[in-house]
Structures are given as C-alpha cells and as structure tokens.
C-alpha cells in the first residue's frame, strides 16, 4: 500500500503511468484511509496471523490473501475528471482482462447495497458477475495524478472479514458476505496469479492505449 502511494507521488511529480499487480503474504486486512481502528478485532487478527494495513484510499475493510491486487497510477485524464469517469475508464481494462479469462464481468450499480465491509457492498467502482461482486476498487487523487487500486477475488481464505472485525462475526454476516461475492475459482476461471496478472495487464494496456515497457517482478 505504501508502494502504491509512492507510485501516486511519482506520477504527480511527472513520472510515467504505472501498473502494479501483486499478492499478499501473510494475509492482511486493509482499512480505508479514515476507517476507525476500533473496527478491528486485533486479537482475532493476531490469532490468524493477519497483518493490519492502512490504505491511502477510502472505503471499508478488505481482507487480502486470496486476491490479486492491482494499482494504477496515472495522470488524471482531464483536470477535473470525475471519480466515476476514471472508474469507468479503468473498468474497461479490468473487464477486458477478465474477458480474456472467460469471465463476463459488468460494472456494479452505483446504488448498490452499502455496509461496513468492502466486499459486502457494491458501488459504481466495483465489478460484478451476475449480482455477485468479484472486484472492489478505490481511488485517491493528488495534484494532477490519480491512484486507483483494487482487489480481484481469486479464491477464498478459510476465514473472512467478519472474523476480523468487532461485532461482525456471526453466521448471518458471514453468509451474506459469501453470497454477495464470487471468486475466479468458483467461476471456473484460471486462478494462477501470473496468468491473471498478464490478462489484466493486457486489458489495461488496451483500455488506456498504453504499452507497458518495463516489467519488474517482485
């Protein structure tokens, strides 16, 4: 997340647009920029070996570990391009990438359900397959640059966000989160992170009309 933030600062200072695709080990619970730390059940996180990180973007708690995370830092397409306009642009990259994997995803409705867990809510920034969320995204803007990052669900961990947040661990909440989301494995799509990452990189390159010239493998 700090590396994503650094990309934003570099692009704001004039660097070329950048795409970063990565996975998490150990798992981590990321909190929105202003989400209260009190939401977290620290004991539950420690018991499961889950780290807690703070995103530079807004939104709600999100568990990383079985996802592929993407981050795009780029100049704003125009000075005051709305948040939604940038989401729509990058959603084209994500949906094209997913289509290469045989997944027909669509942009979620802007007036979808809201809630304290990122993946239990849907908004115009998110991608769904049918009515189930498969990718959640968030943005931060600095000067003439924008960073958007998000998580694409490849698979599930043996526990979820409801186990890691105070007052959220009940069977109803767990069941609601489960039916609200879908993973690439459940869709029968490839879950190999390198295969998915290559598909997303191609999708972004096509949507943004960019050619990624340098690849750095971490």
């Amino acid at each position, binding site marked *: 997340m700090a590396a994503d933030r650094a990309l934003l600062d570099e692009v704001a200072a004039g660097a070329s647009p950048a795409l970063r695709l990565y996975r998490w080990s150990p798992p981590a619970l990321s909190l*929105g*920029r202003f989400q209260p730390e009190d939401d977290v059940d620290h004991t539950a996180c420690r018991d499961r070996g889950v780290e807690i990180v703070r995103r530079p973007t807004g939104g709600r708690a999100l568990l990383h570990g079985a996802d592929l995370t993407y981050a795009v830092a780029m100049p704003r397409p125009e000075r005051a391009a709305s948040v939604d306009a940038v989401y729509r642009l990058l959603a084209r990259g994500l949906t094209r990438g997913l289509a290469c994997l045989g997944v027909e995803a669509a942009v979620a409705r802007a007036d979808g359900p809201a809630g304290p867990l990122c993946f239990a809510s849907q908004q115009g920034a998110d991608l769904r397959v049918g009515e189930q969320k498969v990718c959640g995204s968030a943005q931060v803007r600095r000067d003439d640059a924008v960073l958007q990052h998000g998580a694409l669900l490849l698979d599930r961990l043996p526990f979820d966000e409801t186990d890691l947040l105070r007052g959220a661990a009940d069977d109803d909440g767990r069941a609601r989160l489960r039916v609200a989301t879908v993973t690439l494995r459940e869709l029968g799509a490839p879950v190999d992170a390198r295969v998915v990452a290559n598909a997303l990189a191609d999708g972004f390159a096509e949507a943004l009309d960019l050619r990624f010239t340098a690849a750095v493998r971490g």
Partner: protein
Amino acid sequence: MDYPEQLRYSAEHEWVAADGNRARIGITDYAQDALGDVVYVQLPEVGATVAAMARCAEVESTKSVSDIYAPVGGTVAEVNQALDGAPEKLNQDPYGDGWIFVLEMSDPSELDSLMDAAAYRQLVEEQ
C-alpha cells in the same frame, strides 16, 4: 451548476468568500458533484499556518480521497465542526452549510490571483 457571483474561485475547485482579512473556504458545486457522496472530511487544525496552494484538508467520498488546497495563505481561524457528524453537507449545500474552514489571510492581495465567477464558469465548461 451554481456559480455565486460574490465568490472567488481557484483552479482546484475551491471557493473563497472574503470578509476583510478573513476568508471562508469550501469546495464548489462542480467539485462536490464530481467527487460524489462525501462520507468524511479531515479538517485542518485551528491555529495552523498554511501557504497558498498548500494541502490542508482531505475529503473522502464513497470511493475516493481528495486533497483540499488553501486558495490563499494564512492561519486557520475556524473549522466547520458540523461536518464531523454531517459530511453530506458538502454535497447538499457546498456554498453554505458545507463550508470547510476560515483563514485569517496573511496577504489578502493573493485574492487577486483567483478567478471571478465568470472565469471559473468558463474553466468548468471547457472541461
């Protein structure tokens, strides 16, 4: 889209209502519309000194975090604490109850570098 005549505007889509050495500041109707539903406003500290064009506050909408810049330099004299409990005021009344902070200006002549309503409207319409 609303562009009150009596205000001055920055290219970063903040408005300034000047009264003597004091400047009340918020974001424009266009800015609140572009950001979407505001869910949190990180207010500056009263007493903090800010330079013109320095970052001094942050606005989180449902899916984005954006910086707010000081259109002019000065010392933060007041902040709109009501936004803590009701950040949606930025969307509902950007030029009224949705004001963000008041600066005691260090150099009121900096106002001259800001746009009037007609120039700001033109900037928005060109985008």
